[in-house]
């Protein structure tokens, strides 16, 4: 009896010390959790205030005619920026049409065909360097290779500039997406007698597609808002474009132009264009994510 009593007393003493230390640890835990929550809330402030600001300044001019009419001349009121919306869609689409096949096929090559070859390492290295290149340089590049030989600013040149901007993002996220595909799937496919091409098309790509789409959407979101590469290449136009080979309006350049003029109507229109641009990018993003989340 005595023995047991002494033993349990020791046990409770130990427990008491241990308990004091544990209280200290859980206090630290609670403080750090609090800091993390506060900081996460803080990161939302810029985003929320941007949206509030855009809604406040952009909503007054938002109407159907905004989407269908041409920009007003200096000092005039009314009008819209239908040509800029079309221009942005066309140039982002052109950029995607160039960079998606190149980026995804390169990613397939460096991840599925030849992971360690010198060429693969070179492609990976160049793509990483490209992500760091300022967007204005993409504009200068497209100016040199498209605008100068053609002797005109054009939507085509704008598309080329945006494709250079999008390519590294698409390539590197596609590579990550392919790396994320379990090797067991590839083995199973080869084990059943599939060729490498069949394995890639039937097993690897379907599994990697949602992650690849995320990369493409990131690239679109970035390219749609870029002004610098377009100033040198597509310039701007007051009119509807009738071909890919003439100066073309875009939302980003319209915002840039109209926000710096002394006419209040144009400044308001720049706000509305900003709102439309952000809405487009958001809707495209959410749509892509829902479609591919459902597919999986």
């Amino acid at each position, binding site marked *: 009896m005595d023995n047991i009593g002494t033993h349990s007393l020791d046990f409770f003493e130990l427990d008491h010390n241990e308990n004091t230390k544990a209280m200290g640890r859980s206090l630290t835990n609670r403080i750090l959790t609090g800091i993390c929550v506060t900081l996460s809330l803080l990161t939302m402030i810029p985003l929320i205030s941007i949206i509030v600001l855009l809604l406040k300044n952009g909503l007054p001019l938002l109407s159907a005619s905004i989407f269908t009419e041409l920009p007003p001349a200096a000092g005039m009121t009314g009008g819209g920026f239908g040509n800029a919306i079309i221009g942005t869609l066309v140039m982002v689409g052109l950029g995607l049409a160039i960079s998606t096949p190149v980026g995804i096929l390169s990613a397939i090559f460096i991840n599925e065909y030849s992971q*360690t070859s010198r060429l693969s390492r070179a492609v990976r290295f160049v793509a990483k360097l490209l992500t760091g290149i300022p967007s204005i340089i993409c504009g200068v590049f497209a100016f040199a290779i498209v605008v100068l030989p053609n002797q005109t600013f054009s939507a085509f040149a704008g598309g080329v500039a945006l494709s250079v901007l999008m390519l590294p993002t698409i390539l590197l996220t596609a590579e990550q997406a392919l790396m994320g595909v*379990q090797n*067991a*799937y590839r*083995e*199973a*496919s*080869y*084990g*059943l*007698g*599939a*060729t490498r091409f*069949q394995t890639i098309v*039937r*097993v690897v790509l*379907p*599994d990697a597609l949602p992650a690849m789409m995320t990369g493409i959407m990131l690239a679109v979101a970035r390219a749609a808002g870029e002004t610098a590469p377009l100033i040198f290449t597509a310039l701007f136009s007051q009119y509807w474009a009738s071909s890919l080979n003439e100066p073309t309006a875009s939302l980003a350049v319209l915002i840039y132009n109209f926000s710096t003029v002394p006419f209040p109507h144009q400044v308001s229109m720049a706000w509305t264009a900003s709102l439309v641009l952000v809405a487009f990018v958001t809707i495209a993003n959410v749509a892509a994510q829902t479609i591919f989340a459902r597919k999986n």
Partner: protein
Amino acid sequence: MPIVDQQMTKQTSPNSNPPVRKDFLAAKDFNFFYGKKQALYDINIEIPERQVTAFIGPSGCGKSTLLRNFNRMNELIEGVRHEGDIRLLGKSIYDKSVEVISLRRSIGMVFQKSNPFPKSIYENVVYGLRISGQSKKSTLDEAVERSLRGAALWEEVKDRLHESALGLSGGQMQRLCIARAIANRPKVLLMDEPCSALDPIATVKVEELIRELKKEFTIVIVTHNMQQATRCSDETAFFYLGKLIEFDRTQKIFSNPSEKQTEDYITGRFG
């Protein structure tokens, strides 16, 4: 080009009892290297037809390496090299006329970790048929039922063939992988520790299935579990440090092995 067509038609008639071929699958003076490291040394083995042959031995002894050479899966690894020959029904699997993709259809494989594709049960089973250009629905339907019955899975999944295979239990997934392999009507089934990730009940089911499948297929199974080798194999090969130490009837290996190393391993003195 299918390399075993003639023999195939001869021996699939269920009622005849054709003689068992002793050297159905054979390695001759086979050496294998991962880069500079040699993994297999002068392997000579003849695997008999429609029997279960177990490969046992401690980790790194080369049993999986040899298994993966039978369907040339090891060639997917960079920097590997082999010497000697492997023959299926007397014909070299390295012969120029042998397409590696048709070899892999003739010699199916089941992996350690069950790896069904993230597709429906149905699409998993017909994968091998689809990639070989078969798209006729009646043929595919027939193959699905035959293969799933063959893998003792039909009754459990027949009402949800078009649901994702990833919703199956571990044991069901492994039997689905077996169904997927036998849908190709292979001559040989290679199994690389097929039960090592399964619970005891699922293991019993797969072992029963293996005993059933040997009526139709020649089976080679790599296992770490010696009870499993005694339960379901007819022949056992013991590998150690890349060499084939002993190859005999399973009963003989486990009751009266000829080699000291074999005895030490099966009695648990190392490994």
